[in-house]
C-alpha cells in the first residue's frame, strides 16, 4: 500500500492500459502515414492534368502553368509528398480549388454536422442493437428470436440510402411525423457556433426550442444510418451469447434457479460485450462513409456534399484532406474502443497487479 512515490508512478506508466494506449497510438500513426502516402499517390497518378481539370477548358496555358507551380505538380512525387507533410505539420492542407478556401477551413465547417449524425447513429446502434441481441439470445429458437434475426439481417441487407429513402417515405411523407430534410427548421435562428455540433451549441446557448428542432431533425437520418449497424450489433451479440449459454456456469446459474432475465443480462451478456464493442468500432468506419449517402438524401449540411463535389472536380488538396481527416477520426474512435475494452476486460485491467 505505501509504495515509494516513484514506484507508484512507474506502476501507472507501465500499467497494461497505458502500454496498450502507447502501442495503439504508435501503430495508428504508422497507419495514418500509410493512408496519406496511399491517397497522395492515387491522387497524383491519375491520367490527365489536375490543374487543367480544375481550371476548365477555357483557362489559358499560363494559368494552368501557374496552378501547376502552386500545386508543385512539376516536381518529383517524393518532393511533393515531403512538402505536403511539412505543410500538414503546420496544420495546412492547402487551398481547395472548389471553394478557394483553405481545406482545413472547409473541413472545420462541414465535419461537425457529419460527426453529430454519426454519433447519434452510434447511440442508436448501441441502444437498439445490443438489447435486441440479448433478447434474441434469451428467447433463442422461439418466435421473438426468429423475428429479431430476420429484421437484423434485413437491416444489414440494404445500403443506407435505401433505408434513408424508405424511412423518409414512411415517416416523413406517408406519416408526417418527422421533417423531410435539413438540420433545423428554417424559421429558427442558428445558435452561435461554439463546438459546431448543433445539439450541443443550442444547449450551450440555452435555446431549447432550437435543440428540440435539431433533435427532431436528426432522428430519421441517424436511424437510417444506424440500421445496418443495429443489425450487425444484434447479430453479433446474439451469436456470442448463444455460445456463452453452452458454458457450464450458465447451467449452474440455471440449476440454482436464478431468474432468466438476470442470467441473460449479467452472466451471458458480459462476455459478449467485448466482441460487440469491437464490431461497433469497425461499424463506425462504415458509418463515416455511409453518412455520405444519408446526407445526400436528407440534404444534411455535412461533409458529404463537399466530399462528392471535390471528388467530381478532382480537387486534389481537398480529396487528400477529406480522406485523411475521416481516416484519422476512425483511428481515434478505434483507439477509444480499444481502451474501453481494456478497461472493462478484467484480464487486461488486472494484468500485472498480482
Amino acid at each position: 500500500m505505501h509504495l515509494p512515490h516513484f514506484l507508484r508512478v512507474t506502476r501507472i506508466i507501465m500499467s497494461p492500459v497505458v502500454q496498450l494506449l502507447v502501442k495503439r497510438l504508435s501503430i495508428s500513426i504508422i497507419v495514418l502515414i500509410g493512408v496519406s502516402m496511399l491517397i497522395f499517390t492515387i491522387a497524383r497518378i491519375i491520367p490527365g492534368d489536375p490543374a487543367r481539370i480544375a481550371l476548365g477548358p477555357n483557362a489559358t496555358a499560363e494559368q494552368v502553368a501557374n496552378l501547376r507551380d502552386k500545386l508543385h505538380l512539376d516536381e518529383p512525387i517524393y518532393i511533393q509528398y515531403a512538402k505536403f507533410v511539412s505543410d500538414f505539420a503546420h496544420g495546412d492542407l492547402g487551398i481547395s480549388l472548389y471553394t478557394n478556401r483553405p481545406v482545413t477551413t472547409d473541413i472545420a465547417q462541414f465535419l461537425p454536422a457529419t460527426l453529430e449524425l454519426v454519433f447519434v447513429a452510434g447511440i442508436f446502434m448501441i441502444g437498439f442493437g445490443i438489447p435486441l441481441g440479448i433478447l434474441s439470445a434469451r428467447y433463442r429458437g422461439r418466435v421473438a428470436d426468429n423475428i429479431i434475426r430476420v429484421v437484423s439481417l434485413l437491416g444489414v441487407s440494404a445500403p443506407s440510402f435505401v433505408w434513408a429513402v424508405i424511412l423518409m417515405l414512411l415517416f416523413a411523407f406517408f406519416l408526417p411525423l418527422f421533417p423531410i430534410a435539413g438540420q433545423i427548421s428554417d424559421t429558427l435562428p442558428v445558435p452561435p457556433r461554439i463546438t459546431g455540433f448543433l445539439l450541443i451549441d443550442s444547449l450551450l446557448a440555452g435555446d431549447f426550442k432550437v435543440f428540440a428542432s435539431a433533435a427532431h431533425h436528426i432522428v430519421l437520418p441517424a436511424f437510417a444510418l444506424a440500421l445496418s449497424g443495429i443489425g450487425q450489433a444484434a447479430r453479433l451479440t446474439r451469436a456470442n451469447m448463444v455460445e456463452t449459454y453452452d458454458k457450464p456456469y450458465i447451467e449452474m446459474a440455471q440449476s440454482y434457479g436464478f431468474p432468466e432475465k438476470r442470467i441473460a443480462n449479467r452472466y451471458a451478456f458480459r462476455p459478449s460485450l467485448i466482441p460487440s464493442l469491437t464490431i461497433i468500432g469497425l461499424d463506425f468506419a462504415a458509418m463515416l462513409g455511409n453518412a455520405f449517402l444519408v446526407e445526400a438524401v436528407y440534404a444534411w449540411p455535412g461533409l458529404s456534399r463537399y466530399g462528392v463535389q471535390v471528388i467530381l472536380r478532382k480537387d486534389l488538396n481537398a480529396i487528400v484532406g477529406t480522406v485523411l481527416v475521416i481516416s484519422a477520426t476512425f483511428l481515434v474512435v478505434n483507439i477509444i474502443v480499444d481502451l474501453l475494452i481494456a478497461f472493462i476486460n478484467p484480464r487486461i485491467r488486472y494484468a500485472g497487479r498480482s
Partner: protein
Amino acid sequence: MRRVMWILLSNPLSVIGLLLVGTVIFSAVFADFIAPFPSHRGAVVDFSNFNQPPHWPNIFGTDLVGRDLFSRILFAYRISLMLGVVVLAIAVPIGVTVGLAAGYLGGWVEFALMRLTDVFLSIPPLVLAMSVMGLLEPTLTNGMLAVTTMWWPWYARLVYNITRSESQEGYVLAAEIIGASRLHIMFREILPNCVPSIVTKMTLDLGFVILIASSLSFLGLGVQAPTPDLGSMVAEGGNYLPDSWWLTVFPSLAILIAVFGFNLLGDALRQILGGDT
C-alpha cells in the same frame, strides 16, 4: 456436397435465401427473355408513356423518359452480378495470397503486409472507393477497380487469422520436417483449410459488392447512364418523392431482395461449413 444441400433445404430461411439468389441470378442471365421491353436497357425514349405508376404491361411503372422500370431492374441485376463476380475474382486471390504469406512467413513480411492491410482497412470502404472512382473516369471497369481496392484486405485479414492458428498444427510441422517448400505448405497444406471460410465470405460478399456498387452509383460515381443501375435509379427518383414513389421504391426493394438473399444463403453456409468471418 449432398449433405450440405440437405441441411440447406431443411431450414426454411436458407430455402428462402436459395430461392431469392436463384431468382436474381436467373433474371440476370435471362433478362433478354424475361424483360417485357428488352430494348429499354439503353437510351430509349417514349415520352407518350413517361412517369406512369405501375400498370399493365409496365408492372413497376415507367421512368422519366418512359422506359419500363421492371425491364431496367432486370438488366441492372445483370451488371451488378457481373461486377460482383469480377471484383471477387480479382480481390480474393490477392487477399488470400497476402494473408497466407503474412500468416505463415511471419517476421518483417507479416509486419509489412498486415500494416498495409491496416492502411486499407482504416479508410472507410466507401470513401476509398469513392476517391479511386472519382479520380479515375467513372466507367464500369474503373468501378470494378475501385471496389476491388477496398475488398482484398478483408480476405487478407480472414486468411491471416486462420493461417496463424493452422501454422501451429501438426500437419504443417510434418510437412516442414519432410522438407516441403514454403509455397507448397502455404498453398497445398494450409489453403485447403481456409476454403470453407472463404466460400462463406464470398457468398455474403456478392451481396455486399452489389450494395457498395449501388452506393457508388447513387452518388453519381458509378456506372453511367444509359446503363441501367439500381443505385442511380434510386438517386434519380429521389427528386420526385413522394408523388412518383415507384421510381425509388422498386429499385430500392430490388437491392434489398438481392442482398438479403445472398446474406441468408451465406449465413446458412456459415453454420454448415463453420467459417468465421
